[in-house]
């Protein structure tokens, strides 16, 4: 029977379009929470920019796991830092999310809501006691029950400062600011003495700054943002004073962590947050700065520094849940977190690990001093970033803060608008 051109064209179009139409939507099927059964099968494990520096560590870790559980095979995928969330979202939307995924709490939240993150309270609740309570709770989502990732490593960066710039401004280089009030006083002094040529900070306040200043970020139910209260307005008003006095770098409104780090390297900025890894960079790229480097704790007015949390999530749609849960636990257990911590400046989230002499005994080096100080501060650190605070919300806050600093809006108006925008985005997230 001859086929008409129109029929053939329609069939061809359908052949092309129909298979594709299955893509692009997350499944409503939350998947079973049952991870019992024999630990076996092939699974995929995705990390976040770790292959370049820790290939040997992960190769060894995977080999040990496969040896411990014969019949398992772990395929390791490492994604670059840039666009990591986009890569996960493409995989999640396309149904190709790996079985075990390195995530941060803000990435877990939408995945858990879409039914793609396994509830570990149900599937692996027996491991809960191995982790610090705060770390285990960091992957819980307001409005949902359950915990959606194993806590992995914790981090809390120190604050670096340029002692010679402090000295030139008549400030005591051995007494860096500890609270926001001290920071604002010193920053204004530094800008005044340098005639506006040296700024103290290169970044606008972020949600973590509001948290460390003592501003309530969300209501107690976690259903609406609340950082537009009087304390929040006070913080933004003080930042406006810094901006006007050039104590905040003029390019802070468009700065990224990389660009502000560069400004610190060139001596244009007196203080910058970082990690113990940065010391090596200073030594190599700016030896004169390295000679004058000061290391202090994060600025906080609450007594609690900010803690960044990494987690390892299990895909709720995984066909090999038992192996995936076993591997995610294996990566994050006390022994492996400790050995990973000794390779890089991160801190274990497992109970008791921070009491290891590695985190308590001085050996006279700056690296150890930073490590011990950070480990100490971690014990009562807080993850100030709300898990529901998305990238779009960060942009909304940043833009409103910029309007306040430029004088286009009052700090109160700016924060009201930011909270309104974030609440709208929160509602749209569902």
């Amino acid at each position: 029977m001859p086929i008409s051109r129109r029929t053939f064209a329609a069939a061809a179009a359908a052949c092309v379009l129909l298979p594709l139409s299955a893509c692009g939507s997350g499944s409503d099927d939350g998947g079973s929470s049952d991870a019992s059964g024999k630990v076996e099968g092939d699974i995929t494990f995705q990390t976040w920019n770790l292959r370049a520096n820790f290939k040997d560590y992960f190769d060894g870790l995977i080999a040990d796991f496969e040896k411990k559980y014969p019949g398992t095979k772990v395929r390791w995928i490492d994604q670059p830092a840039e666009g990591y969330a986009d890569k996960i979202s493409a995989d999640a939307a396309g149904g190709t999310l790996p079985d075990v995924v390195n995530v941060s709490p803000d990435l877990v939240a939408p995945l858990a809501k879409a039914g793609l993150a396994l509830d570990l309270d149900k599937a692996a609740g027996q491991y809960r006691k191995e982790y610090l309570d705060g770390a285990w709770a960091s992957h819980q989502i307001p409005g949902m029950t359950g915990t959606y990732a194993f806590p992995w490593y914790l981090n809390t960066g120190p604050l670096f400062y340029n002692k010679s710039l402090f000295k030139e401004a008549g400030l005591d280089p051995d007494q860096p600011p500890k609270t926001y009030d001290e920071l604002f006083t010193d920053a204004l002094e530094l800008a005044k003495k340098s005639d506006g040529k040296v700024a103290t900070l290169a970044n606008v306040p972020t949600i973590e700054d509001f948290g460390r200043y003592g501003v309530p970020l969300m209501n107690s139910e976690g259903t609406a943002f609340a950082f537009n209260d009087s304390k929040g307005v006070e913080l933004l008003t003080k930042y406006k004073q810094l901006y006007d006095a050039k104590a905040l770098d003029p390019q802070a409104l468009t700065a990224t962590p990389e660009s502000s780090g560069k400004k610190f390297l060139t001596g244009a900025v007196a203080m910058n947050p970082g990690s113990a890894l940065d010391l090596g960079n200073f030594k190599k790229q700016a030896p004169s700065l390295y000679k004058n480097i000061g290391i202090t704790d994060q600025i906080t007015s609450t007594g609690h520094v900010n803690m960044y949390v990494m987690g390892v999530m299990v895909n709720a749609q995984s066909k090999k849940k038992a192996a995936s849960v076993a591997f995610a636990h294996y990566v994050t257990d006390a022994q492996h977190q400790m050995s990973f911590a000794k390779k890089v400046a991160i801190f274990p989230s497992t109970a008791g690990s921070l009491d290891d002499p590695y985190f308590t005994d001085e050996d006279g080096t700056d690296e150890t001093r930073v490590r011990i100080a950070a480990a100490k501060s971690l014990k009562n650190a807080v993850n100030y970033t709300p898990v529901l605070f998305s990238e779009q919300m960060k942009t909304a806050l940043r833009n409103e803060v910029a309007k306040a600093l430029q004088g286009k809006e009052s700090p109160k108006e700016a924060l009201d608008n930011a909270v309104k925008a974030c609440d709208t985005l929160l509602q749209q997230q569902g």
Partner: protein
Amino acid sequence: MSSSTVSRVRRQGPLSPWLFAAPGLLIIGAFILYPFVSTLVNAFTDKRTLIPGEFVGLANFRELLHDDMFWIGLRNSTLYVLGVVPALVILPLLLALLVQKNIPGITFFRSAFYTPVVASIVVVGLIWVWLLDERGLVNSLLETIGVGRIGFLSDQWLLLLSAMAVTVWKGLGYYMIIYLAALANVPRELHEAAAVDGAGAVRRFVTVTVPAVRSTMALVGALSSVAAFKVFSEVYLMAGPSGGPAGEDTTLVMLVQRTGTGLTGRVGYASAISVVVFVVTVALMLLVLRADRRAES
């Protein structure tokens, strides 16, 4: 075609041409038609990255009307067209006239002007950011000659102008090549006749060259206006992911990227912005081509 092939094609009837076209159709269908249709459909839904969403009619478009960031994006994309297109229509033509002559060493200059075209936009963006930084080379020079430092990357308007300058700098060589091809087809006799009539270089340019390459100018105008309206990389690299101070340098395509990507991306809303970008670019093309036809007639 051999007679046996012809008879085989005849035997297979109307199916044969489709089989030949099938690979192309598949590629066009999968990578052009499907995303296009999908964008159109999504524009009328509240789809998010991980949630399929439901049909919401014109709600996304209504929301656009009240979205300040959309109007900022539309303003900046329009300003980009107005700032960049005239420069990209005229400057490459003048450049092509300069390098058109076959004199010793001219190949070097042609290559040099073309170099920015082949350079990665990311590298180009980073270099210009370093140059225009508060402590960059340009500001150091300006300070040396007593002008003082200028906030190329911290002022909303200077930032947009700087990005436009980079777009023009990078596009000059590309359009220069198009003009060189057009200029090669301008009859030499016309120039000679005009010269005999006493026309100077400027007059010859206006009365001979410009009319001869007018269609090419329209083509360059159409291509560059579409590219300018869809600008992303230059502004993103120079203004940062937030789109400049308070997002005031955001363009429409940046807004699509910011709104529609990530795990919490609003795919439906971003698709609605994409539809607006599509409609405006088609309108721009038609406008330029219609103006050219009118001038021709």
